[in-house]
C-alpha cells in the first residue's frame, strides 16, 4: 500500500516536472542561444548546451547600434518605468481611498465610469490621443508615456480599494475622535496599512511599463530616446540582423529585471492575480 503511494507520487512528479520543463524550454533556449557563437546558433538549434561558451555576445550586444549602447536604452526604460510607476501608484492610492472611504454625491456614477474604463482597451483611444498629443507638440517626448499614469490606473484603483475595504472602519473613527482630519487618516493610518496592495500594483506597473511596446513605437522617433523594448525590436530586424548571439544576449538582458522582480516579490504577484484576475 505504501509502495503504491510512492509510485503514484513519483509518476506525478515525473509528469509534472517534464511538463514544466517543456513549458520553460523556450526560455532556456533563449538564454542558451545568447551564449552560443552567432554562426552556431542555428546549427542543431534545439540543443541547449553551447559548443563553446561565448560570453562576448553580451559585450557585442551591449554596444548596440548606430553608436548608441544598450546602456542608454536601459536607462531610458528605467526613467520611464520609475516615473510612470510612482505616478500611477500615488494617484491610484488617492483615488482608491476616495472611492472606498468617503461618502460623496455622485460617487456611484464615477465608480461605474471607472470600472467601464477598466474594460476599455487602450487601442480605442490610441488614435485620438496621438492626434491630441501631436497638437501639444509632445511627439518624441516621454510625456505621452508618463503623464497619463498620473491620473490613476483603474486596475490599481480597484485592487487598492479591495484592500482598503478589509481595514475596519473603527480605525478611521478612532483616529477622527483623536482629532485627525481625512487627510491625516489617509496618510497616517491607511497608507501604512495598504503598502502590500501598493507594492502589488507597483510590480504590475513595472511589468507593463518595462514591456510597453506600442506606446514608444507610436510616440518616439529618435533612437537615443528608445526604451529597451523598441531598441530590441530594431536590433532584431530580420533583414539586418547577423549577430544572432548578441541579439539573444540583449533579449535575455531585457527580461532579466522582470525575472528578478518576479523572484523577489512572487508572493505579491500571486496574491494580486488570484484576488483580482490582473495579468502580468
Amino acid at each position: 500500500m505504501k509502495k503504491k503511494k510512492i509510485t503514484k507520487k513519483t509518476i506525478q512528479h515525473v509528469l509534472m516536472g517534464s511538463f514544466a520543463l517543456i513549458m520553460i524550454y523556450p526560455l532556456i533556449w533563449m538564454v542558451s542561444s545568447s551564449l552560443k557563437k552567432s554562426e552556431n546558433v542555428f546549427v542543431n538549434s534545439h540543443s541547449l548546451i553551447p559548443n563553446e561558451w561565448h560570453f562576448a555576445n553580451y559585450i557585442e550586444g551591449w554596444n548596440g547600434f548606430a553608436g548608441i549602447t544598450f546602456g542608454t536604452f536601459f536607462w531610458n526604460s528605467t526613467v520611464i518605468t520609475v516615473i510612470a510607476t510612482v505616478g500611477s501608484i500615488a494617484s491610484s492610492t488617492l483615488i482608491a481611498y476616495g472611492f472606498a472611504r468617503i461618502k460623496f454625491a455622485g460617487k456611484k456614477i464615477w465608480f461605474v465610469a471607472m470600472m467601464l474604463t477598466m474594460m476599455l482597451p487602450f487601442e480605442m483611444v490610441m488614435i485620438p490621443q496621438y492626434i491630441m498629443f501631436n497638437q501639444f507638440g509632445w511627439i518624441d517626448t516621454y510625456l505621452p508615456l508618463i503623464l497619463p499614469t498620473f491620473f490613476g490606473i483603474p486596475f490599481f484603483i480597484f485592487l487598492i480599494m479591495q484592500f482598503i475595504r478589509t481595514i475596519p472602519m473603527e480605525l478611521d473613527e478612532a483616529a477622527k475622535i483623536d482629532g485627525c482630519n481625512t487627510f491625516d487618516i489617509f496618510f497616517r493610518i491607511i497608507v501604512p496599512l495598504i503598502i502590500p496592495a501598493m507594492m502589488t500594483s507597483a510590480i504590475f506597473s513595472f511589468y507593463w511599463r518595462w514591456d510597453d511596446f506600442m506606446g514608444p513605437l507610436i510616440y518616439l522617433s529618435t533612437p537615443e530616446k528608445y526604451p529597451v523594448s523598441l531598441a530590441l525590436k530594431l536590433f532584431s530586424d530580420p533583414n539586418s540582423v547577423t549577430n544572432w548571439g548578441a541579439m539573444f544576449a540583449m533579449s535575455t538582458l531585457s527580461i532579466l529585471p522582470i525575472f528578478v522582480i518576479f523572484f523577489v516579490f512572487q508572493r505579491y504577484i500571486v496574491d494580486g492575480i488570484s484576488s483580482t484576475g490582473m495579468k502580468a
Partner: protein
Amino acid sequence: MKVTPPNKKLNTGNKNVTGYAFISPFLIGFFSLTIFPILYSLYLSFTDFDMMGTPNWIGLENYTRMFTSDPTFWKSMKVTFFYAGVAVPIRLVFALLVALALNKVVEMVGLYRTLLYLPSVVGGSIAVSIMWRQLFGNDGAFNSILAAIGLPTHSWLGDPGTAIWTLIVLYGWQFGSSMLIFLAGLRNIPKTFYEASSVDGAGPIRQFFIITIPLLTPVILFNTIMQVIQGFMAFTPSFVVTNGGPVNSTLLYVLYMYQRAFEYFDMGYASAMAWVMLVIIAIFTALIFKSSEHWVHYESDTK
C-alpha cells in the same frame, strides 16, 4: 448627541469636497484621456483626416469603404475572429487542466506553479516575440527537434496555413495568470462538498461536473471576458513575429488598424475601425454576460 444636525450639513458639504478632491486625478484623466478622445474618435471616423490640413466631413464613407471595398479589412476581421475563437478557448481549457493537476499535487506546488507561470511573466515582452520568431523559423529549434526525431520540417512562419498557429501557440503558452485565477477558485471550493458526494457514491469525473465546474463558473466567466477582450486586441505578437504575413494570414485587426493610422496616416478610417471593434467587443461582452445567467452559479444560489 443632539448637536449633530446643524453640523451634519456642513459635514456632508465638506465630504463632497474631500471626496472629489481625492478622486480628482481620476476625473481629470477620465474626461481628458477617455471621454474626449472617444468622442473625438467618433467624429474623426466620419472624416478623411490624414494628419495634414483639417478633417473633412465625409459622412459614412469610411464605414461603407470598410464593409464594401476593402478586402484587407475583411481579411483582418477573419484572422482576428479565428485567432480569438481558437486561442482563447485553448488557453482557458489548458489553464483549467493545469490548475486541476496542480491542485492535486501536494509537494513542490510552489515550484511547479512558479515554473508554469514564468512564460506569462515575460510573455508581454518584445524579447519573447523575437524569440518565438526564431524558434519557429526555418532553422529554428522547433524544426531542429522535428529533424532530430525524424519528422519532416516545415516553414511554419512562411506558410499562410500555419503562421497563425504559431501565434495561437504563443498565446496559449502564456496560460499562467488564468491558471492562477482558476487555482485560487479551486482552493475556495469547500472540501466537504467532495466528501459528501463521495458518500453518495460519486466518482471523480462526476464530481468534476457536478461540483467543480458549477462552483468555478463565476471565475470562468471573468476569465472568458478578460481573455476575449485581450484576444481581440492582440497586436505585438503579429507585429513582431510575422508582421501580418505571409499574405496577410496573421494580419490581426489591431495591426491593420495600426498600419492604417501610422503607416498611411489614414486617421479617419482607422478611427472608424476602432469604433467597429468597440461595438463588436461590447456585443460579445454583453452576450457573454447575458448567457451567464444560464451557466454561472453564484454560491448564494446553491446555499
